């Protein structure tokens, strides 16, 4: 039996840090108890990290099971349940879901992406979800391409990953804001000698014309008439990147690489997330 109690203020950093921490049980039939009852906020990163932890538990424990205690706060519970639907096998939810999530909140529930073909299938799924949600055609195309390529980027470039990357997409304010989160277990950046320096070179390489999807999506954003903000957490490195500027920071060490792309309508003023010590 393994217990993991998630803290109430589940920021992106703390979600990845807690959920991707090493397992403490080696039993084949180990049960993982994920206690999210104190959690007060959920986003795409937290859901993707939960889904990745479930997949990892099943890989490490052949007959292992997972019990997820949903947050006590109903809005967080309903969001987490929506982002984990459908539940994988050998996972049980405990707790109450008494209300409906906001319409189209879980645009794409947390989904492991095994290979490039799965990334394309995820793209088709995203397109249909955007159309159902009534998202404008240009933003639908942009969100679809971005989701597909971010997933494939993680599949192709994650170095020595232990598990498939997990992608989740959420919408807010009637589809005007979309967040795509990709969490992978690649070690290339996270375990490099200076993750912050590594991340600092990413925008520079894109400006120099090197191919790379993150640079491409920022370029495409203008034509698609959307605002885009890219946030990357890898090891101790953090990067916040918009078409106009980028900044890096140092934070607590996190396993793997997490990429968050926030897409909003042009008129929305983008708000920078807190990155800790900036540089």
């Amino acid at each position, binding site marked *: 039996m393994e217990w993991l109690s998630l803290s109430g203020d589940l920021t992106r950093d703390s979600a990845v840090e807690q959920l991707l921490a090493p397992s403490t049980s080696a039993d084949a039939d180990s049960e993982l108890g994920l206690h999210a009852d104190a959690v007060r906020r959920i986003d795409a990163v937290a859901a993707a990290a939960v889904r990745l932890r479930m997949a990892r538990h099943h890989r490490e424990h052949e007959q292992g099971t997972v019990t997820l205690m949903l947050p006590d706060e109903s809005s967080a519970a309903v969001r987490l349940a929506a982002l984990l639907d459908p539940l994988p096998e050998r996972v049980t939810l405990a707790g109450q879901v008494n209300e409906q999530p906001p319409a189209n909140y879980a645009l794409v529930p947390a989904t492991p992406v095994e290979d*490039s073909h799965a990334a*394309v299938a995820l793209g088709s799924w995203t*397109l249909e979800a955007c159309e159902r949600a009534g998202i404008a055609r240009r933003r639908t*195309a942009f969100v679809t391409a971005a989701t*597909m*390529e971010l997933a494939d980027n993680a599949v*192709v470039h994650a170095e020595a990953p232990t598990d498939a990357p997990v992608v989740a997409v959420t919408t807010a304010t009637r589809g005007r804001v979309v967040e795509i989160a990709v969490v992978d277990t690649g070690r290339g950046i996270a375990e490099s000698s200076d993750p912050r320096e590594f991340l600092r070179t990413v925008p520079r390489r894109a400006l120099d014309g090197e191919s790379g999807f993150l640079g491409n999506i920022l370029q495409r954003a203008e034509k698609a008439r959307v605002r885009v903000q890219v946030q990357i957490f890898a090891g101790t490195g953090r990067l916040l990147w918009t078409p106009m500027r980028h900044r890096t920071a140092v934070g607590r060490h996190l396993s793997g690489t997490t990429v968050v792309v926030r897409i909003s309508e042009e008129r929305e003023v983008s708000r920078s997330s807190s990155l800790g010590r900036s540089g």
Partner: protein
Amino acid sequence: MSVKRDALAFKVPGKVLGTRVLGQEVAAQLRKRAGDGQQDLLVDFAGVQVASSPFLDELARTLRAWNVDHPDHFVVLMNLNEDVQDTLELVLERRDMALAEMTKGTLRLIGGKVHLQETLNAAQELETFTAAELAVQLELKLPNLHQRLVALQAAGAVVRMHPPGAPQRPVVFATPRPAELVACS
């Protein structure tokens, strides 16, 4: 002079196209369908709603190689929606490439500079022409025009023709006629 041409229409399969791997697979299908390259090539994007930049990059590189290997045949893209056009434009700019595309019965370049589009427009008016004739039309010196013709050939929008007769006859170029392309597609 009008020459009847054969064309092969390749339908790009799928509604959502992404990843470099899928781009390589579709490019391989295209090469296989096109066989030994004895026909013009029409690449039809009808039904494609989303195509990402890595996917289009693979396809564009394949078409560029195809143009180099088959300078006597046109390569024209058709039925691209606005989003796919925009993405392809970025991909081609990054590669310093251009490709020919037909929209609403008009041939245009994606990724090419303005003067190339002007040259293509003038060539379209003549349909078949010698370099000297096109140079007169555009009021350009021949060496400048030759550079543009080379770029348009690389884009698949202009081909050299081999008219019957003595080898010393001037080289004749041609651009595709949109009406014929529609009939072939």
